[in-house]
């Protein structure tokens, strides 16, 4: 175990934590939005992430030019997932809103299985890799240290997405409706808004973010079957630490998970496996509704 006080060393680790956190944030924020409004625990969110990665893979193969392939692929991943989500929500999930809400778990579990096999059929069982997009494969001199350009991009993109979502939630009509839905579903019904449309939009946007997150994670990862099962648990941890349904909560949760993963590995090496779960327990005992979550309303 080497723990130096070298500032450059610490700086790189801090940046690494942020980069990991921001990548996870992009995925997890979709999960938290969906939970907040639809009250659905979407186990298939990880599978959506995986499909996003595979879609990007296909695009980088179709386009000769790596930059075009990558960036169009990232957008295509979002669009594809949006379309899949629209179909799933409109034709399948919507039949379950009125029923026992735990059935939705069973439903999303079924989706995980089906998507797992479909990706295997389309893209095969082997591992694949996509390079960093051109211009992002090197390191940038930040004064204190060199740092990989792609990670810098992720570190900047995370807050941009967060701000963008915040502006939408805070200052648009749809945003107000979504916030209202998060707090009180009955109120939403009373307002006479088109609840169906709200649910569709949130599910589509949330899933599209999972697709984007999957596409953007690709340059740092292998694309392979089963890549969904790890990311979903990370997303759950983030969403819970931050508070279910809270956008900024998942932002904070993602950074915390990033820090605990990177510095946890540094300090505790392989025992890092325990750190995250201990952290989760401590947070939940200290703040029952997560760091930025709103306490659940008393039922009368």
């Amino acid at each position, binding site marked *: 175990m080497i723990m130096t006080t070298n500032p450059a060393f610490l700086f790189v680790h801090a940046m690494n934590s942020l980069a990991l956190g921001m990548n996870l944030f992009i995925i997890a924020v979709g999960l938290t939005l969906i939970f907040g409004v639809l009250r659905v625990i979407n186990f298939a969110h990880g599978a959506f992430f995986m499909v996003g990665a595979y879609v990007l893979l296909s695009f980088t193969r179709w386009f000769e030019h790596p930059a075009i392939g990558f960036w169009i692929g990232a957008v295509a991943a979002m669009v594809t997932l949006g379309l899949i989500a629209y179909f799933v929500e409109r034709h399948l999930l919507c039949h379950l809103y009125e029923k026992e809400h735990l059935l939705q778990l069973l439903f999303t579990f079924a989706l995980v299985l089906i998507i*797992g096999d479909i990706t295997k059929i389309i893209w095969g069982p082997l591992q694949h890799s996509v390079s960093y997009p051109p211009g992002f494969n090197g390191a940038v001199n930040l004064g204190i240290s060199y740092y990989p350009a792609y990670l810098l991009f992720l570190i900047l993109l995370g807050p941009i997405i967060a701000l963008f979502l915040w502006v939408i939630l805070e200052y648009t009509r749809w945003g107000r409706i979504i916030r209202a839905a998060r707090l009180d579903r009955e109120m939403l019904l009373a307002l006479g808004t088109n609840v169906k449309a709200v649910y569709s939009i949130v599910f589509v946007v949330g899933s599209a973010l999972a697709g984007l997150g999957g596409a953007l994670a690709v340059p740092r990862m292998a694309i392979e079957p089963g890549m969904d099962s790890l990311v979903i648990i990370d997303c759950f941890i983030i969403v819970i630490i931050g508070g279910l349904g809270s956008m900024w909560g998942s932002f904070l949760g993602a950074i915390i998970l990033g820090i605990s993963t990177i510095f946890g590995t540094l300090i505790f090496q392989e025992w890092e496996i325990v750190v995250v779960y201990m952290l989760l327990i401590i947070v939940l005992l200290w703040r029952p509704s997560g760091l930025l979550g709103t306490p659940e309303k008393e039922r009368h």
Partner: protein
Amino acid sequence: MLHIKNSFLFGITIYAYFTIAFPVLSAETLKIGVLMPTSGSGAAYGIPAINGIILATNEINENGGLIGKKVEFVIRDTKLKPSVASAAAKELITKEKVQVLFGAISSGVTLAVSEVAKNEKIVLFAPISKTTALTGKKFHKYIFQSSANTIIEGRAMATIAKQIGAQKICVSGFDYAYSHDLFESLEQKLAGPTISAKYHVKFGTKDFSALISQLLSAECDTVVGAIWGGGFLAFVKQANPFGLFKQKKFIWGAEVGSHEMANSLKGDYPEGIWANSYDLWYFKGPPAHKKFQQALAKLEGQKETNMWPITTYVGVKFLAAGITKAGTSESEKLVKALEGLSIDTPLGRKTIDPENHRVNTGEFWGPMKKVGDSNILHMSPPTYFD
């Protein structure tokens, strides 16, 4: 009430149909039960490995089968879970009436299947799982292991370390039995160079940034690694921007020198690192290897074949030779026949050690280099270590 009764009876009939099986035992076929992960993260290894089995069985059947019977194999997905694998193994034995078990990937899964083999007195032939516990601590007479185990791999690493002039070595791997065993074997065999630091990361992690920084600031001149598959892929891609591979020498086990790995990483593959592979389609070897590669290329529909088939191909060939020698697939006689058995494989003559049931299987090792204008690296030159 009537209808409840009907659905109840219907359910029982279905259950009975599947369970109280009509023994599909036929005098004409000889069944091999294959346990491989074909879904989830293990599919990347399990599915290619099955090709080797297909190839070997086809060859055997074209030549008239074994002891007058046609060879048939039955595949079950292990999902990389020991409990699933052991249930599947029991099902293969009791329902499909397979005479031999073959396969399993990941040491925990293989050990679980091995326990079934021990209790059911059925031979388990393990062509891929590397853990020495299988034929060491947990040895029993029905287990045979033809993979290049951690002793062989560690020995090869020690030799290479000396050859490339390593002084101080850092080792890094996933925190589980395979890496620990491998590095222990490496440490025992090292003559000259010393291990200065060990870095273990949580099993299956996809983020290696902490490890990368640790390696960057470590005092060693050579890194010996054992992170495999998608993990290695992620490690390389995360380490590249930091220039890690330019700063130190690398020896990396766990078959990351395979062509499929080079093919998926393409230009991102770190040039000059020493890596290993069970097989290389471009290896200019004996005619038997060429013949094997041609047949495999035909089966896979690509000239640049995968690495895993050879492991299972050789395994099935061993089993076939054993059954032929014993004249039966009956376990006790088969065990006797397999012990000390030698056969010719595409990569030379291999023997099962009668004492510990291990095979002297080696692997290709060599530096990964650019060849021609292809951006897919080749091991050049490959040397066979066993």
